[in-house]
């Protein structure tokens, strides 16, 4: 098997790798306008509508236990197994990159047998880490200097100050992200789950004392 595969594709390593940016753009060319409409409309809309209607009627009469068990078992098992097995086997040779890109995006996440952590509107809002306030102050200082530099590009004192503050901010941000998760989607520091679950800006309480000043 392996030898045949190599014989048939002697030039495999030399094939031009397709441009990662243009690929997702090419995909919709093949699809007629109607195709992707079917998927999104069916899944999210049907489920929330079906369940509230069925449950209150059937539950108290016959099957209080069966229904909630059947649905979460059937759907998450069938879909994730069929898709990854069928497509990589059928077309790994023709379009090796297109399929793995499309599937994880459009495939809905599994119906949650366990719910993700959430917070109700919190009256005891979590207190800000002083490091966060310090990062805010550094960012503002850099922002203000950057605006000044837009119209005074030759001010060497401002340039060196901006450079120093930016490198200090980078260190502080890395340390903060290791502790509290990434501050933006493209950071590679810290646990990504904390991006979602650490307090959001409007959930944070700031203490009135404890002012921290930035030396410039």
């Amino acid at each position, binding site marked *: 098997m392996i030898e045949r595969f190599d014989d048939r594709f002697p030039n495999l390593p030399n094939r031009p790798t397709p441009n990662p*940016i*243009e690929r*997702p*753009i090419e*995909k*919709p*060319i093949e699809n007629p*306008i109607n195709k*992707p*409409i079917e*998927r*999104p*409309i069916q*899944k*999210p*809309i049907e*489920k*929330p509508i079906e*369940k*509230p209607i069925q449950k209150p009627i059937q539950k108290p009469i016959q099957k209080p236990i069966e229904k909630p068990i059947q649905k979460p078992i059937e759907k998450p098992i069938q879909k994730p197994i069929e898709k990854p097995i069928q497509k990589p086997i059928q077309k790994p040779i023709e379009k090796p990159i297109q399929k793995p890109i499309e599937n994880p*995006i*459009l495939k*809905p*996440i599994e*119906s*949650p047998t*366990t*719910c*993700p*952590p*959430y*917070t*109700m*509107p919190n009256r005891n809002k979590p207190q800000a880490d002083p490091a966060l306030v310090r990062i805010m102050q550094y*960012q503002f200082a850099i922002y203000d200097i950057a605006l000044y530099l837009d119209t005074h590009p030759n001010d060497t004192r401002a340039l060196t100050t901006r450079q120093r503050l930016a490198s200090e901010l980078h260190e502080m941000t890395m340390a903060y992200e290791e502790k509290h998760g990434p501050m*933006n*989607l493209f950071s590679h520091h810290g646990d990504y789950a904390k*991006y*979602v*679950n650490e307090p*959001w800006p*409007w959930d944070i309480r700031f203490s009135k004392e404890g002012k921290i000043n930035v030396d410039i």
Partner: protein
Amino acid sequence: MWIYEKKTQIPVKVSGKDVRMAKNVLEQYGGADGELSASLRYLTQRYAMPINLGKAVLTDIGTEELAHLEIVATLYSKLIEGATKQELIDAGFDAYYIDHGFNPFYVNAAGNPHTVTYIQTKGDPVVDMYEDMAAEQKARITYEHLLKMTDDPHVKNVLKYLREREIVHFQRFGETLRIINECMGKSAK
């Protein structure tokens, strides 16, 4: 807070100037279902969203819509670059030019100014998710209408990309709605 990155989300190319299409593209800039409406809608819905997952979805999609707003503005700018007096008049775009020059402005393809009445938040996560899913569908079909109005393959590529993103956003909002329905009131495990 937001930090600007000096690039568009995808490369924006056009084959040549097309004043008529530049005018049409403004529908997704300042139109009812355009990128500005979408971004403003999602970002202001975050404060009544009870689950963290929903806050992340609204924030991140609202931010991506701002990036799309920049793509549409770039597309417009490249399409109208170098337009002559006669071309502006032929495209029915001279009145717009008198008011805004060659800059994009928050109007729709028919020239009506953007208004915040295009969008809504009701302060309820389920209601807002339905609003958002409807908005994504309306934006998607608007891109399909735009796609029918041009033969420029480069412009089509950009429009197809943006249309595909509306579908992905619809999917994510649908999943968020389902999680809200199934998990609100249950403790996390």
